[in-house]
């Protein structure tokens, strides 16, 4: 067992946790934040992406104990109250979603991509999102959404 002290979406949590609990399971089961999804269990699909200290992380391949002391943001924590994050708004408006299962991870990866890179070309976005799989859309509207959000975020 390990002592975990972690800030998730601005709120501190202190828990006694098993050493082998994955961050995604801690988020979904202990904190009941089910917007972070598990798609492949093996760090391939990106449905479980959250931000740990501002960096996109596939939470299915990180132990919760490794996030001790960290600040974690999940899909539930990026909007400002009623006001959606520009990336959330863009995915909504540009139809960058169908079944919605990949959407939270896609949004989280896209936010970091845009925050860390200025003047993203379409090709940069395509390559930057390679670690997030979508089986429904064919990606066109996802790329469009990221472009739309980028222009707002970098204004």
């Amino acid at each position: 067992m390990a002592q975990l002290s972690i800030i998730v979406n601005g709120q501190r949590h202190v828990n006694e946790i098993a050493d082998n609990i994955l961050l995604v399971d801690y988020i979904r089961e202990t904190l009941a934040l089910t917007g972070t999804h598990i798609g492949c269990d093996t760090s391939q699909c990106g449905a479980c992406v959250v931000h740990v200290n501002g960096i996109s992380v596939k939470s299915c391949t990180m132990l919760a104990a490794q996030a001790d002391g960290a600040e974690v943001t999940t899909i539930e924590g990026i909007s400002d109250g009623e006001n959606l994050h520009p990336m959330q708004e863009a995915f909504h408006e540009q139809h960058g979603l169908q079944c919605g299962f990949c959407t939270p991870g896609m949004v989280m990866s896209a936010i970091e991509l845009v925050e860390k890179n200025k003047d993203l070309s379409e090709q940069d976005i395509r390559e930057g999102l390679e670690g997030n799989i979508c089986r429904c859309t064919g990606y066109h509207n996802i790329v469009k959404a990221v472009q739309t959000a980028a222009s707002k975020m970098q204004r």
Partner: protein
Amino acid sequence: MSSDLNKPIAHDSAALYVTGTAKFTDDILFPDDGLHIALGLSSVAHGKLVNVDLQEVLKAEGVVCCLTAEDIKGRNDASPVFGDDPVFADGLVSYHGQSVFAVVAHSAKQARIAALKAQITYEELPAILTIEEAISQNNLLRAPHHIEAGSVDKGLEGAPHRLQGQIKIGGQEHFYLEGQAAIAFPGEAAELHLHVSTQHPTEIQHKVAEALGIGFHQVSVQVRRMGGAFGGKESQANLPAIIAALAAVKTGKPAKLVYDRDEDMRVTGKRHDFQISYDVGFTNDGKILALNVEQFLRCGMSFDLSAAIADRAMMHAENAYFIPDMRVTASLCKTHTPSNTAFRGFGGPQGIMGMERIIDDIAATLGLDPLVIRQRNFYPDKGTSESGKPTPYGQPVTDCVIGQLVDRLSRDAHYQTRRLEIIKWNKDNPVLRRGIALTPVKFGISFNKTMLNQAGALVHIYTDGTIHLNHGGTEMGQGLFTKIAQICGDAFGLPIDRVAITPTHTGKVPNSSATAASSGTDLNGMATAAAAETLKARMATYLAAQYQADVASVRFADAQVYVGDEAISFAKAAMMCWQGRISLSATGFYATPEIHWDPDKAKGVPFYYFAYGAAVTEVAVDRLTGENRLLRVDILHDVGRSINPALDRGQIEGGFIQGAGWLTTEELVYGKDGRLQTHAPATYKIPACSDRPAIMNITLFESGGNPADTIHKSKAVGEPPFMLATSVHSALRHAIEGLITEGMPNLDAPATAEQLLMTLKGMAR
């Protein structure tokens, strides 16, 4: 009009998706004392179960109990039709990854760890794994079936040219992002309520009741949404649901089974892989006179839906081409592999791939542009004197638009110019080769099985003028719920935000068909419109009497009800009707008209109409590595009068890319022991964001609406665009045409980089 019909409005769950608040099955609040299930899978492809020792499993931490075939009081069967898919192997295992037992524990992790502790002894038996082995040992699920028109043998003998060939087409994993998931909540007495990620809640209800030996009325099944399905949650959702139900009944606690990705890929069936061989006779100018096609499909260890899938493959073996003398035979190969199942297109894609291969081969033989051969053989368009030529199964093709559609696409995409330019490029560039192809799709809309073409809806109007909408269709991301809400809102003259979209539930609309065969909107939209018409008629009659107006004058628009000269708000109208004791709840029902099918003669009119589309794809191939990519895609697709152009475009693009994955990077590899080697996304490659072509132009064909009397003249769009991706394979073949030796290479599918290299090597020999 304040109606949202025909508008590109967002998916109804979009706001929930982007905030992480949409609940998928595994996200539903689950009580702390609820139990979790893991499967114990067979580690041989074929063998007798000599001993299943679960002692160590039961002793493992957190384990509550195990389930085996002996725990099933009713039928040990998860199959959709034929009764040949055991829930738990009973004495015999028939594929590597088959469920032998289940562990029920306090956490999913505990259950998974415990499941690995089982000691299972097998007496291994010889396994038949491939189509070739099944053919050589005549291991078929049933005698081969065929569809035939004219006199094929005579036609072939008399033809000026004759050509034979074959193609192997790989299967495909669905890879819905949300794996199979089911939760069973025990109710009072023998009642049971399930939340399942399924396209077919009614079948789950039936299979659970049969396994438990109780009535259908004691089981209710609910599904709000799936995280993708693509056909893979039709019959394949039965197994986890039944096992969750068995666990809930045995323990008296809520029980949940969610497959992890490995498990999902190993246990569930996939798209059928095919071998297709052909013998074709044609004229000097490429007109096809006679064609004999033999299709062999790997079904796996049981029927599942393979009989219907083979039927659809046969019914699409001629694609968009009129062939006077044609015979197509399908052999259902039985193998010791997972039982292959429904997947977007349902046999149609393989049938169409076979036909497009034939066209390309004819073109290569005659030294002509394949598009010319295609155009010379199209079914005549509607409105032309030749229109109405019959398919090999006897259905006249009266709604054809493929000729004009392809003319327009070819012109708009500059196909001819680009083809000539590419041919010139390839002469000068021996390493980086390019290819281009235009292929058409004609896809029959309706379930092959006539009886399945029915649907129900339930509509309530509340006294504040809001609507509760329910129907038998399920939401898997395609936007069905959004479209039906648009239809419902439009009927009452209300915006979509006045309509509550509610989860599919067997207690609300009973005896539903699977949401499949692209028919979700066609069927449930019509049923919803029927319910709305019933309610409107009741309201109109009452309100007309109140205002002493003519019933025929009553109109529902702009969130108002116009009665004679009066305009009252819809909310007030609803309240008045309630006060006047008028029922504000109605069911609606729809059965597709005009369709019929005689399975013995393999003739009839199985489809209410056809959907049409075409795509031009340009590719590049690196001859030294086989690496390839899509450079540009142009699509023109007929959706009739679109109920929601944004959702329809999403289906077209997503379908195409999924089809491109099937034909290029997605490869299922089974080991000699029958174990699926590619059981995770590390080894099974579906298209990523960077695989999408840089240029992708999607245009909706302006047809003036579906000639068939469908809901608001729309056309089904779920499956047809998938087959637009045949253009990718044809373009890849074009890119390596004549590279080492003369003529067309025998490129199989998927055309992975390895496959392309091996093909080139084969050509060199």
